[in-house]
Structure formats: C-alpha cells, structure tokens
C-alpha cells in the first residue's frame, strides 16, 4: 500500500483526490457523503454574497454515443446564507477532522470584504482558502471571478489583502480565459499565494437546439456563455498546469483541475507538476463512488512501480515539457503495422491517403488474394495519424529509426547558422 497522503503548500490530505468547488460541495450533507466515499478533501462551493440562480443551468456535450464528453454550466457561487454554510462546514470538519476542507471565497474588490470573510471561515477551522478568480459567468459581470482572474494586477492586490490576515495557506484559482496563464500565475505568486489551482471553466456554448434554434441551455428563450469542463478540457488544463510548473517565476505548488475522471488522469497531472487534483464533472456524471477506483488505481500504479509515496511522482515529467525550438529535428519514427492483429479496416490507409503523407499501401497478396497494409517507411513522416485512427490498440506501432545525424534542435540550428553555418545541417 503506497502512501497516498499529500502536502500541498502545507495543506495535508489523506489522498490527492479533492472535490472541486462546485455543485457537489454545496452542503454539509454532500461533503460528508463524499468523505464517507473516500474523497481526501473538498473545496466548499464558493462562499460570498449569496446569489440567485437560473434554470436551466447545465448542459453537456455528447459524442459518438458517449455521454458528457464536455459539460457546461451557468450556475453561480453559493445561493445559501454564509452563516448556514459556515455552520455546516464547522460540523463537517468536526465529524471528519482528518479530511481536508478548503473554503472557496469570492467577494467584491474591497480589502475589508476579503479580511472579513477570511476571518469568518478560518474561525470555523478550515484547512485552507481558495480564492475564486475563475468563474467566467455572472460573477465576472459584477467584477468578480474571472474578471479579476484576467488582470494580474487585481490578482496580486487581492491576494495581498488576503495574506494580510490569513492564517491558513492560500490557493489562487485561475481562469483559463486568458492568453497566457503564466502571467496570472506569476501575479498570484508575487502577491504571496501559497499555491495556485487550475483551471476554472472555459467560456463555452455547448450547442444550439436544431428545432427551437435556441442556445443550449436556454433560460426562457435566451442563453449565455457558460463554463466548460469535463474530459474535453483535460488537455487544456494539463498544458496550463505544465506551463506553470516549469515556470521558475511561478514557483509555487499547483492543485490540478480540469477533466480529471480517472486515476490515470490524476497521475498525468501529478507528473506534470500538480501536488493534488480536484474533480467535479466526473463526480457529477457518476456520483461520489468513482473515487474508489481513483484511489485503488493510483495505489496499484504506485505499488506496481515500487514507488512508496504519491508525492514522489509530483512534477517528475515537468522537465520533459519544453518549447518546440528545443525538439530534436533529427529524431525519426515510422509506423509499423502488426499484421497478426490488423483487422483490415483500412482506416489507417485512408487517413494517410486523404489527410497525411500517402505512405500506407493496400497490397494484395498474389498467392492468397488477401489484402494487407504496408507502410512505405521511406515516405512515412512519423505523424502518428495511422496509429491514432487504428481501432485495435497496439496494432500500429511507431518505432524509432536510428539516424546518422546527431541530435539537433531548431534553436541549435539557428544558432549554428548565425555563427556561420559550419555544422552539419539537415535540410528539411
């Protein structure tokens, strides 16, 4: 049994799986059920001046028979009085002292307002604070949420205000609705944040009803952009986590959020620099019980590799994430098709033929009349498309082809050219 405990900027948790601040963490009843199910922590649904919600408020992207590939909502922060939330939070912490309870906060752009709410939530014994600078709808129009998260100066200032009074670690939750998240992450860090969490939801319109011509979801005939999340946003979130993790100017721990549905997703975020993960959509789709496999799968993964603690993998892949200019231009791979498992659906052939480099031939065996697929390796650019479309896992393998040339990156090539171009340059 591996040690699954994490420490995120001083916040300790029995396992890396937290419920993100969202509908699943709206009440004591829910969070207590989640802790019973095994979740290591929960970020309570954002506290602030209680708001009014609309109906309907959720929508989902289904694709190819799979439901909830993506999810979108126009729900706002808590709609319940602060006192009620605080009472339930206190009770929950009392009942589950070893579980991590974080308060998500959002108040107007006023120093006193931040001071007041921080004191109130810390008084009931939360383990940390998460400042919600990410919510893209409704609150942003009131100058909160992503309206703050899009301005490094505002982030820095509000984090400073919070840090003036906070006794517990402060996590800053960032919005992905910006051009380069490193700038807002750096601002949070400069403001004194102990950690950052990302990503909040992405501006989105899930769809348009083909019959009524109304946006989905609509509220009495009108729709508004919502926050996108779920499996579809995972690659976006993972990139943002990795970019922040490898940026020395950010330099603080990260809580990973965005489409995490399985233990594998969690491992990827941990490897790319997250010290823990937060989950919402997967729980909304399947209920709290999914955490059982997340914990079990993560534990088995670590045990099978002889890794004693989950913290040992945090950030272990960050150094492999770089810029395009640092990639080796002389590295070559080609597709190789394993005939034993090929089912001759010819999807690789047509993908390559129509949309890539026309290097997979359908060859008819003269003896048997049977067709087989053959890669002309000299023409293969190693783009991966064939192995991506192949429905039988492992049938198309991308294999490394040793080349004569030594490794050479674009940056090295340009530098060499600038210096007189004496070194051997492989022309593309």
């Amino acid at each position: 049994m591996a040690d699954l405990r994490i420490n995120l900027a001083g916040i300790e948790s029995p396992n890396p799986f937290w419920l993100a601040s969202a509908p699943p963490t709206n009440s004591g009843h829910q969070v207590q059920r989640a802790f019973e199910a095994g979740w290591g922590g929960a970020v309570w649904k954002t506290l602030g001046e209680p708001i009014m919600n609309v109906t309907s408020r959720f929508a989902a992207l289904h694709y190819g028979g799979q439901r909830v590939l993506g999810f979108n909502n126009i729900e706002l922060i808590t709609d319940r009085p602060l006192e009620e939330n605080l009472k339930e939070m206190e009770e929950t912490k009392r009942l589950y002292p070893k579980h991590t309870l974080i308060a998500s906060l959002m108040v107007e752009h006023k120093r006193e307002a931040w001071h007041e709410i921080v004191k109130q939530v810390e008084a009931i014994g939360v383990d940390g604070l998460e400042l919600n600078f990410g919510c893209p709808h409704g609150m942003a129009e009131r100058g909160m949420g992503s309206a703050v998260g899009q301005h490094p100066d505002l982030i820095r200032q509000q984090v400073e205000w919070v840090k003036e009074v906070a006794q517990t670690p402060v996590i800053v939750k960032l919005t992905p609705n910006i051009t380069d998240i490193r700038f807002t992450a750096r601002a949070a860090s400069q403001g004194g944040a102990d950690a950052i969490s990302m990503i909040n939801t992405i501006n989105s319109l899930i769809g348009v009803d083909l019959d009524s011509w109304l946006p989905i979801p609509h509220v009495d005939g009108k729709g508004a952009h919502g926050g996108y999340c779920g499996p579809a946003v995972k690659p976006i979130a993972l990139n943002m986590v990795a970019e922040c993790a490898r940026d020395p100017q950010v330099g603080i721990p990260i809580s990973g959020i965005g489409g995490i549905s399985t233990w594998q997703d969690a491992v990827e975020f941990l490897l790319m620099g997250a010290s823990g993960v937060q989950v919402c959509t997967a729980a909304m789709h399947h209920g709290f019980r999914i955490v059982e496999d997340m914990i079990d799968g993560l534990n088995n993964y670590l045990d099978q590799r002889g890794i004693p603690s989950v913290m040992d993998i945090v950030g272990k892949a960050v150094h492999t994430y770089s810029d395009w200019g640092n990639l080796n231009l002389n590295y070559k791979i080609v597709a190789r098709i394993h005939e034993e498992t090929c089912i001759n659906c010819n999807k690789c052939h047509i993908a390559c033929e129509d949309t890539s480099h026309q290097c997979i031939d359908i060859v008819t065996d003269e003896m048997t009349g049977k067709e087989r697929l053959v890669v002309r390796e000299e023409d293969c650019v190693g783009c991966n498309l064939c192995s991506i479309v192949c429905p039988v896992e492992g049938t198309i393998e991308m294999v490394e082809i040793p080349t004569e040339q030594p490794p050479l990156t674009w940056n090295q090539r340009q530098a060499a050219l600038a210096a007189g171009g004496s070194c051997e340059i492989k022309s593309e």
Partner: protein
Amino acid sequence: MSVPLDETKTIDALQANFTEVVPSLKPKEAMDEANRCLFCYDAPCIKACPTSIDIPSFIKKIATGNLLGSAKTIMDANPVGASCARVCPTEELCEGACVLNHASKPIMIGLLQRHATDWAIKNQAALFQPGKSNGKRVAVVGGGPAGLSAARELARLGYAVTVYESKGKAGGLNTYGIVSFRLPQEISLWEVEQVKALGVEFRTNTTVGVDVQPEEILEQHDSILLAVGMGAVPQLGIEGEDLSGVLDAISLVEETKTKPLTGQMIGKKVVVIGAGNTAIDGATTSRRLGAEQVQILYRRTEKEMTCYQFEYEFAKQDGVEFRWLVAPTRILGENGRVTGLELIRMELGEPDGKGRRKPVQVPDSQFVIEVDFVVKAIGQTRHLPLIEAFGLQHQNGIVAIEEGTYRTSHPQVFAAGDVIFGGGKTDAMVVDAANHGVRAAHAIHTALSDLTQPV
C-alpha cells in the same frame, strides 16, 4: 423465441405465433451499435453484399440521427432492402465479412438496416423520384424481388414501366413465400408501394401466357424483363399424393400470409419432406399452426442439408424433429385423407456429380409412421411454358443470358432473378435477385440508349 405450443391453443392464440420473432433494435441499442461501427474504408461488408449497399455510410447516418439518409442509402442500392434486412443470411454475407469478427463481435448490420428502413416505413418517407420520361416503355414480367428492383430502377431512369404479376399483390416471395414471423407482409408491400409511387403500373392478377400473350407485350414495349421466379413444388411421384392432407410448403406459407389461420393442424402429426430453407419454413409454420409433432424427413444426413445453420437451429428451438436417411415411398390414407406414410431407410453411396454422396435405398427397410399431414418441400418447378412462349434458350428451365448483360436469346427480352439462377452456382437469395434486377435494369437502359449497337 417461439411461443409455447400446446393443444389448448385456440386459432386466435395461434396468431401470436406469426408475429415477427426477431425483435427490432430499441433506439438506444441501434445508436450504441451504430457507434460501434468502425466506418471502414473499402469495407469488406460492402463487398460481401450482393447489392453492394454502402453499409458503413448507412450505419454512420444512423449514428448521426440521419435516418432518412440512411434508409435512402440502403434502398438506393437494394430496392427490397427492408425485406433483406430480415431475410438475408447476414452471418454469411455482410456480418460474416465484418472486420470486427477478428476484434470483438461483428456489427448487427441486418438489424441496423431494419432499424433504418423501419423508420422510413413508419414515417412514410418518400425516398426516390421518378426520372424524366424518356418516352420508352419496358414490361417487367413478375413482380418479385428481381422484377420489383428492375422496375424501380427503370422508373428512376425515366422509363414507363408495366409490371405483370399473376398474383393479387406484387412482391413475390417476399409478399407470399416467407413466413410472417420472419417477414411480415406489410414490409414487402411497402417496398411495392415505393415502386408504385414512381409511377410504375402494376397489372396484378395477370398471368402472362394466359391473360395476356407474350407477343402482345413484345409489341407494346421496347424491352421486356422476364423475372418470373420459380413455380410450384414438384410432385413426389409416389402413391397417395392426391390425398387430402398432402400440402406443399410454399402454399402452406402463403395461406398463413393471405388467409385467416385455420385450426386444422392443432394437435396433429405433420411430416415435411426435404431439408432446405423452404422445408424449415414448412415445418416451423406447422408447429406454429399448432401441430403436436413435426418431423423433417431427409434422405441424406445433417451434413448435406441445404438450409442455413440459423434456420436449422431455429427449427430445433421450435420443437421440429429431424429424421435423417429416410425417403417416402407411399402416402397412406383412409376416406381420401392422409393417415400414414410409408418410409424406406437410406444410406449414403458414391458421391454424385456435385460431390454429394448419393442416397441409396436400404433393401426391405420399409416402415410406416402415422401422420395427418405431409408437407412437400423438395424444390420448385420452373416456368417452362412461359420461357418457351417467349422462345428463349434455356437449360432445364434456366434461361440462358449473355454474360453481364442479362440479355436472353431474344434481343428484346432480358431475364433476372430465379429464372436465371441455377446449376448450383449460388444460393437463390432475395438479395441476389434484387441485385440482378437492378443490374438488368441498367443493362436494358444501356441497350435502349444505344440502339445502334448490334444486338
């Protein structure tokens, strides 16, 4: 699955035995299954379909909710695609060729085809338009799968088409010859309606050679397609064949599709002679009509049976018994009614021309069994008089055609369907007949569009 049969069944209750046995896919099932299709390129399922339906495309269209497009894709390639969705031996054709046979399990192509065509039936979708009139006339003799398919194509190409059909309704085998629990009549009749909607004239209850003469048709049309299919079940050629209670399987099936069911078989003993797909139909129909015991008698063994494996399994599940290596020698009767059947034991001798071991009688091995009905299913006769009335070259009733053009020895006459099948080359399947019909229509079009070509 089959409804439990017992003697207490009333005639009304028998009706339930004739509702379709294979359930439709539920909408979600169809969607799940459609999404499982890989959308292969140059897909083997298309190659395995005699009518070359673009199967991956019609399945993709189901997956996107484009059921109109899906039904069009199917029916465009195969004008009797709704019937074929039910009667094709899919495991030997499209589903047998599915690449997923090697990876998981094949796509349920037949049921998906049925899902799409059922949608078209239910929504009364108009799938095709008649072509701009080209002023030419074509007669189609026989309104079965081949004739119907040809008529549909010709109408789309702008021909004025008249279908001569001896029965009261068109559709041929699909309308009259396939048991209702596999293919309800309304499916076939919808396909007929689709063709009618293109302006094709159907002269039903009109037997060519009797009600109208070949010469007359030849005179009135630029071309003729002979698609008359097969005739009645031949005589066994044994004593007692004229007794009441001797039926042929095709008529038996036809009666269940055209007349109210009778209770005449309730609790009775039935034997079926033959072991092809028609014999299976005769046997399962008898069981579903309430027969207490139904035995299929075959002079060879299980190995030589010509029925599809799934039909064999289906018959067994319906409680049909099989007796190998026996042949009828005499039908016994009292007061003009069948009471028994004399059988002789057989054994397999030397292989015949096709390599099948020839059954030979075991001397002095006769025995008698008690039966109430004898159902004959030993093949079908061919429409020799009609073929000869048109003056067509043929071999044992199989009309000779020019390779690839469907043109007979008479330059104005083309032929398609069962009338050109034979010689053991292929199974006579509905889907093959449909394919012939479509191809023959295009051959006629080619011929009529370019009359300068020597005939």
